């Protein structure tokens, strides 16, 4: 197996992109990544495209071929990866494997979702497809509903409070104000979160990540030739993934995403680091409770302790550990297929020292954590500067 | 003859008070309550219909009879609010009680007496030994046009009776049954219409009273029974007043009809009405006692039954919650707007 590095990263502005369809979003992020890697379209050997529900959102399947086509990657193999909200992270892992294996040198991993061309109830239904269609969606359970069930139990078992949940959204919005790609560049207060409209008790509107349009892309290359393309390649130290039951109620615990815990354990083993070595982490905060559980399942806090830590500011920018400096899914936006790749882009910028006003001081080791469904898939990556 | 092996009743938990309906139409609640002898009526949940009510009643009956769904040789569901115009309620019930596929099933409609018509049909099958056990259900989520007099009474509920032919099973023996039938346009609903229409005061004398007394007198004539031979009597109860009046006309006393008079507290459950009344009466009846039941269905007809309670009744007594206990214990009041929403009269666009 070869060591793999990220040599280029690109993003488009997330949000309600009324003027842009799938093609425009993909092209914007893709070209930025190619320029960053100083390569031409013809240098790319393989493409992995992550998208969750382009068929439902845009009536468009066959998205990897479309991506290759639109970016001028003539006749190369391209494969779409669908793993619900973990499609982007899963695509990144496939790209990593194909470079590490020696089959391809230059691989582009893209992620995209164009969600605002359908009504919000249609989007809700489409996202519901990440759960068990027959036994969750049929019963009228929504995605906020599933995370609300986890939140309620977490609050019951560990004394986590609605203020602690709200603190996640407040922190991530604060970070998003410093990110020009973010959907929401607006600070909010705990009180505003608590007073926002209830969606699925105890979760309120401002506990939920938004419906977004967006795309992200990274370029991968073998580490040993990475410097030919980029002065500060970022080494992928670990790329791990785990699954759990599709149906939430069937899991061993409602207050832990076991797939996250397993993927993280393996990632720490592969990268030969531990949670305390991580300087910057992008976690999957589709709902505020998800970030609290992620902080615990990734090993940053013991079970039941993350909520208090967030409330006390331990996870804010340049505090004990900087979490979701991009603004996370909550502040930056959550175009589902793009999210996992966007997380990698943010960590690349942080480790290069390019994150400007939201730069984490002395960031050396970074992590991304991407979840599909209510925790049926978790993908974890660990990165380190390689210059 | 065939007898009752088990029974079960179900009434939705929601209630609306006469006062809350009267307020909307600026009517005098006190005079309505007195005039119709009704205090409140049951309201189905948004997720309830004649099929779900029939299933809940059927499950209780199976439990009461201590039988399995597969023991049923027939399932007949009488209702005037079958959820489908075409697609039987009876198959839903049979599936939900795990009756298997080897059974007869059909939906019946005869206004408020479709359920008792089902009892007679099952009796025929049992007595002819075509089946061992069969189930007859009366279940309705009845409709009353907003503002109409029926709105104060039209409610939801149902009861299921399992009949069998072996003495050792029976909690009550049906010793005789007759019907009295004529073409009388007192109340009707055309295909596709949301609400029934009725002939106003015409529904009383030529409808309800003529048929109930006709069937009951025919039963007396054929059996030699007289009102005092019965410990209890149950009449169809479209409101709380008609059954009291018809009982008096026929020579029954108030104490005979009281245990089965449910309409004042649950409203008129249509196909369920006389059957829930019978279930409630069986809850208190003792071995050896006699019950007379006369149902009524508009259009019009009445079925009359002479029933004799057996000693088996006490052994099964505690297997299900008594009807009056269910009705008084499980209830929650709704106001008129929630009532409209539950009925599907107001929806989000």
């Amino acid at each position, binding site marked *: 197996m070869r060591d793999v590095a990220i040599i280029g990263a690109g993003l488009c502005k997330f949000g309600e992109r009324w003027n842009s369809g799938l093609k425009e979003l993909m092209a914007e992020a893709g070209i930025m990544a190619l320029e960053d890697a100083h390569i031409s379209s013809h240098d790319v050997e393989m493409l992995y495209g992550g998208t969750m529900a382009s068929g439902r959102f845009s009536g468009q399947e066959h998205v990897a071929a479309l991506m290759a086509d639109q970016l001028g990657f003539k006749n190369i193999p391209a494969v779409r990866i669908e793993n619900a909200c973990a499609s982007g992270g899963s695509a990144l892992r496939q790209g990593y494997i194909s470079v590490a294996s020696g089959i391809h040198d230059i691989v582009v991993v893209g992620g995209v979702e164009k969600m605002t061309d359908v009504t919000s109830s249609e989007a809700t239904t489409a996202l519901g497809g990440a759960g068990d269609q027959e*036994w969750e969606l049929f019963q009228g359970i929504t995605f906020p509903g599933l995370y609300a069930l986890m939140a309620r139990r977490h609050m019951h078992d560990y004394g986590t409070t609605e203020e602690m949940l709200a603190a996640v959204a407040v922190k991530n919005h604060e970070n998003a104000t410093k990110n020009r790609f973010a959907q929401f560049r607006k600070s909010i207060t705990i009180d505003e979160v608590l007073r926002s409209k209830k969606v699925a008790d105890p979760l309120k509107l401002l506990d939920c990540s938004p419906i977004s349009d967006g795309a992200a892309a990274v370029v991968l290359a073998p580490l040993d030739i990475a410097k030919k393309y980029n002065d500060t390649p970022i080494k992928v130290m670990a790329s791990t993934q785990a699954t759990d039951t599709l149906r939430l109620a*069937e899991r061993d615990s409602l207050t832990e995403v076991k797939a996250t815990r397993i993927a993280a354990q393996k990632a720490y083993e592969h990268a030969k680091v531990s949670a305390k070595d991580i300087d910057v982490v992008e976690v999957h905060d589709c709902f505020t409770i998800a970030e609290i559980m992620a902080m615990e399942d990734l090993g940053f806090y013991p079970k039941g302790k993350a909520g208090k830590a967030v409330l006390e500011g331990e996870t804010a920018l340049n505090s004990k550990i900087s979490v979701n400096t991009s603004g996370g899914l909550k502040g930056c936006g959550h175009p589902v297929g793009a999210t996992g790749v966007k997380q990698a882009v943010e960590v690349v910028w942080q480790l290069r020292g390019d994150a400007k006003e939201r730069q984490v001081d002395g960031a050396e080791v970074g992590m991304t954590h991407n979840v599909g469904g209510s925790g049926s898939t978790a993908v974890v990556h660990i990165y380190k500067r390689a210059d | 003859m065939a007898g009752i092996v088990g029974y079960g009743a179900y009434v939705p938990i929601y209630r609306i008070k006469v006062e809350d309906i009267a307020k909307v139409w600026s009517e005098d609640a006190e005079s309505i309550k007195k005039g119709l002898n009704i205090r409140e009526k049951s309201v189905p949940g*948004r997720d309830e219909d004649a099929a779900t009510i029939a299933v809940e009643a059927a499950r209780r009956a199976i439990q009461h009879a201590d039988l399995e769904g597969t023991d049923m040789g027939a399932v007949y569901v009488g209702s005037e609010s079958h959820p489908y115009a075409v697609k039987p309620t009876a198959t839903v019930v049979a599936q939900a009680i795990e009756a298997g596929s080897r059974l007869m099933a059909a939906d019946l409609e005869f206004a408020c007496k479709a359920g008792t018509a089902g009892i007679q049909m099952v009796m025929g099958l049992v007595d002819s030994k075509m089946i061992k056990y069969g189930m007859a259900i009366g279940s309705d989520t009845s409709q009353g046009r907003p503002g109409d007099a029926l709105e104060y009474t039209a409610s939801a509920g149902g009861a299921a009776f399992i009949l069998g032919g072996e003495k050792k099973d029976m909690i009550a023996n049906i010793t005789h049954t007759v019907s009295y039938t004529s073409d009388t346009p007192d109340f009707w609903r055309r295909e596709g219409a949301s609400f029934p229409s009725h002939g106003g005061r015409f529904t009383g004398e030529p409808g309800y009273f003529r048929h109930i007394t006709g069937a009951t007198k025919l039963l007396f004539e054929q059996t030699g029974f007289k009102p005092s031979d019965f410990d209890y009597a149950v009449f169809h109860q479209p409101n709380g007043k008609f059954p009291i009046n018809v009982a008096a006309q026929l020579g029954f006393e108030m104490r005979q009809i009281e245990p089965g008079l449910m309409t004042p507290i649950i409203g008129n459950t249509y196909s369920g009405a006389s059957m829930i009344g019978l279930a409630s009466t069986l809850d208190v009846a003792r071995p050896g006692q006699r019950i007379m039941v006369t149902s009524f269905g508009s259009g019009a007809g009445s079925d009359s039954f002479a029933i004799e309670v057996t000693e088996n009744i006490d052994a099964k007594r505690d297997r299900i919650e008594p009807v009056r206990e269910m009705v008084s214990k499980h209830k929650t009041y709704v106001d008129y707007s929630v009532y409209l929403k539950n009925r599907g009269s107001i929806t989000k666009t």
Partner: protein
Amino acid sequence: MERASASLWRKIRSRYNLVGNECQNCNTPYFPQRVVCRKCGRNSKMVEKQFSGNGEIYSFTTVRVPPDTFKDEAPYFIGVIRLEEGPMVEGHVIDNGIAPKIGTKVRMQFRKMYVDGQEGLIYYSFKFEPL
């Protein structure tokens, strides 16, 4: 008509009556049914099992922003129910005036789940009633 009727029809037994299954190899009960036992994999030996319908609320929420199929039902309670035989299942909790809480005992009831427009099918299923 949103879906082919067969896609819902094939689950009728489970939905009407909580018919799950059990692995005879390791005695693990499942609701809803699994084709393959999670513990035994290819060695699993599945047989049907009727669940009692009794259980208790393990967690719950109030869904206020529903999918289109439930737009007229919202808000409604959803619970994770621990069935007395062990498995946990998501389901509607009927609003009967008893506020659901973690630990509230519930019992299965037969209800309409949703109605496919004015002319489509009516889908029935279990729901849970707080006791």
